């Protein structure tokens, strides 16, 4: 029988996916250990997860959590920065400290042969940082350099200004690295205090995935058992301010060959009952290659290398925004098209085909989400940060499958009102201003 190439082949039955569940163990000091043994390769990922993100920083202290993260590996337990670096590099270990709005994560990847000493280094960095004055000064200078250097990057400028437009003085109103004015004023005492108040075994979880030895819990106890921390009294913000829509804002970047466009509003928080509907809506609007924004601006018009939208789910309501970098000459037209795509989502129902593609991409991709040890560690860390139950992912397809076409239109109508959305353009004002003014009043913004 010859092969019929005219239609896609039928898929066979799916192989069952076993979603890894961590073994949980609690040390007497309160530290939770969540471990998944997957000895496929001689390596392991560790992540110490702390609710010590950039969520409490008012404008005057913005960037504090992020600076703590930068200084942590630069000297601890009496060892200098250089000694720590020599130890880590000699072990071949990668240690990265990342800061989000809701968490700080010390992430370590190692060959399993070096797991035991690597665990010791991780404990030292997290528990006993010395915040050496010279290192604090150097790190702050470097951070300030980086903040200033980011003004050269149009996409970075757009991200920072957009945060401000949507959230004002709320912690989400700036990038986690902070701004020049606040970082300049941070000193060693701020860092020491942040560490003392926010790092505690009672709120921390050590996630581990990979080729772990049988006595892994004993090793953790040896390294982390002596950790004593205070009761953490920090309460993350669960509300966001009601900031008036700024309309269209233009940040001038003379000579820009492209304009960075951001259009967005405040979306929803992680765990909102509307989260499944919003995820489907976002996938149809701009979350996938075949989404409306990209098919219009890239595949039809050729105006951009890519247009997309992103739904940022945080503890409090995160942004929901559209983005594209388009060639300068079509800036006004691109903004108009993007707003029209938003309007179309609100006015008419998505097609059955769009619903299928969105749901398929969101739910059938689970096997890919749990493939590698670093992915599994990351997914468990996310569960820890947002308090998601262990069956969150096994029940996820059912929640997405329950989203109707009506609920997609309804949530777009409710949350993506073009009148209330902020429109930001970072580009060459001489060229783009007249076109933008045809769309509405334009305010000129500054580079933060």
């Amino acid at each position: 029988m010859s092969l019929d190439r005219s239609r896609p082949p039928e898929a066979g039955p799916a192989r069952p996916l076993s979603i890894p569940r961590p073994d949980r163990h609690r040390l007497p000091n309160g530290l939770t250990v969540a471990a998944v043994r997957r000895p496929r390769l001689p390596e392991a990922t560790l992540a110490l997860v702390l609710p010590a993100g950039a969520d409490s920083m008012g404008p005057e202290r913005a960037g504090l959590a992020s600076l703590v993260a930068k200084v942590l590996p630069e000297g601890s337990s009496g060892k200098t920065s250089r000694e720590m670096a020599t130890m880590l590099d000699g072990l071949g270990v990668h240690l990265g400290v990342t800061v989000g709005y809701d968490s700080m994560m010390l992430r370590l990847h190692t060959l399993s042969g070096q797991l035991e000493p690597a665990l010791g280094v991780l404990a030292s960095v997290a528990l006993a940082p010395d915040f050496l004055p010279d290192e604090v000064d150097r790190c702050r200078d470097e951070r300030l350099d980086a903040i200033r250097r980011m003004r050269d990057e149009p996409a970075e400028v757009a991200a920072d200004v957009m945060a401000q437009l949507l959230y004002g003085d709320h912690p989400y109103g700036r990038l986690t690295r902070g701004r020049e004015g606040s970082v300049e004023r941070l000193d060693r005492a701020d860092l020491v205090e942040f560490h003392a108040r926010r790092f505690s075994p009672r709120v921390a979880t050590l996630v581990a995935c990979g080729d772990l030895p049988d006595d892994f819990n004993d090793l953790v106890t040896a390294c982390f058992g002596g950790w004593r921390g205070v009761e953490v009294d920090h309460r993350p913000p669960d509300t966001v301010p009601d900031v008036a829509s700024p309309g269209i804002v233009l940040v001038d970047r003379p000579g820009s060959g492209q304009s960075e466009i951001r259009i967005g509003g405040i979306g929803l928080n992680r765990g909102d009952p509307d989260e499944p509907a919003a995820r489907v809506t976002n996938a149809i609007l701009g979350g996938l290659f075949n989404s409306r924004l990209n098919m219009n601006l890239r595949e039809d018009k050729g105006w951009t290398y890519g247009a997309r939208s992103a739904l940022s789910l945080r503890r409090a309501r995160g942004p929901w925004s559209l983005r594209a970098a388009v060639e300068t000459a079509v800036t006004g037209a691109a903004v108009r098209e993007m707003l029209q795509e938003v309007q179309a989502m609100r006015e008419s129902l998505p097609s059955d085909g769009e619903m299928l593609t969105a749901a398929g991409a969101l739910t059938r991709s689970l096997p890919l989400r749990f493939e590698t040890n670093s992915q599994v560690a990351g997914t468990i860390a996310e569960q820890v940060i947002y308090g998601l139950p262990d069956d969150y992912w096994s029940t996820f397809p059912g929640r997405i499958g329950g989203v109707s076409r009506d609920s997609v239109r309804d949530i777009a109508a409710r949350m993506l009102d073009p009148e209330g959305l902020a429109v930001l353009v970072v580009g060459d004002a001489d060229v783009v201003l007249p076109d933008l003014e045809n769309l509405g009043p334009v305010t000129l913004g500054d580079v933060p």
Partner: protein
Amino acid sequence: MTTPTRAIQFPFETRQLDNGLRVILQPDRSSPVVAVHVMYHVGSKNERPGGTGFAHLFEHLLFQGSEHVGEAEHFRLIQEAGGTLNGSTWFDRTNYFETVPSHQLDLALWLEADRMGWFLPSITQAKLDNQRDVVKNERRQSYENRPYGLATETVLHHAFPAGHPYRHPTIGYMEDIDRANLEDVRRFFRTWYCPGNAVLVLCGDFEVEDAMRRVNRFFGEISWGDVPVRPAEVPPSDGGSQLVRLEDGVSVPRVYMMYDAPSFRSAEYETSALIASVLAGGRSSRLYQELVYEQRIAADVHAYVWPLEDVGMLWVVATARPGVDAESLRKGLDETISRFADHPAGDDEVSGARRRARRQLLLQFESVGGRASALAHAAVLRGEPEYVNASFDRYGAVEPADLRALATRVLAEERRTVVEVVPPESSQASEPPPGTDP
């Protein structure tokens, strides 16, 4: 306690279809996913003068459908099935790849086979014009409108003589992208996209004989085509030393240095990678300690090698701190790099670099997609997919004496190209952007 790392082996089989297509199958049933990776042995180095950027533009067109696959359907079908996909073009090769839940293997094979065998009937002027615009916007977004974005292509332009295959960047120059026409598309496809010039790698959840039957079913009837003739030998770089200053919309200077180094095919490739790692592979590395911590003249410094087929490139890139000029930064780099001769890398430095390299290999091999890519690169660029299994041990076997011997040859100021990217006002004479040579 530190223990020796156990050896790793990914057993695989190599087959060849009657039409010349090489197939590599690496079964791994630990997750219900499979990676399909097709690599064609053609890249920007095979472009004609005046036709730069074409291999990459062509890669875009291969996502625009084929005889049985509608426009934009390739992305939709794979994403709807829960998979991920992409393609990329570089100097030596072009690759197309997807990772899908394993029961969707046929879908990925059908899509890849259709564009290998039935691409030409679907191509239109409208598709070419649209993707030309997309690619020009890619060039704007990723290179022209990004600080330091033109540095790398400026290095290449000055490092290699006119007409050299590695002289121009994969993205190509704007005026050349404008020139591409449908006849070029047809000729390029016929020249380079035959089964005999490709490798198909499957990695993941399948049984070898069953997968091979499926491969035969979808790819078996694609016709032969002539395997392209390649130039016998690619000349090395100019061999001289060049220092170029490039103005850009940046607030602080950045220095790019590129040294002639062993190619990916060389027995010394891993050694060159470890030299880069000792120079700037971590915060304890020589350049990082000296320039970032001690002298505090650099904000960051990186060193890396590119795995290329016919030439080798070892890059050192450092960003100045505010107030530090490009010349001081370059001199600082040179001082530390030149010390490699008198103070060769010691046991501790090399052992750490070996571990970092092996750890990074495991990060790549961890996913079926990463492993399929590694097998494809080894098969196409080295002609030996076995390299993937050997590489872990090869990095482990590099000794300090190897670094010493190679560093003496590679880290020579007479055999490198330097581009200093500087803010507009501090520049004396600005460098015109590289253009195409006849």
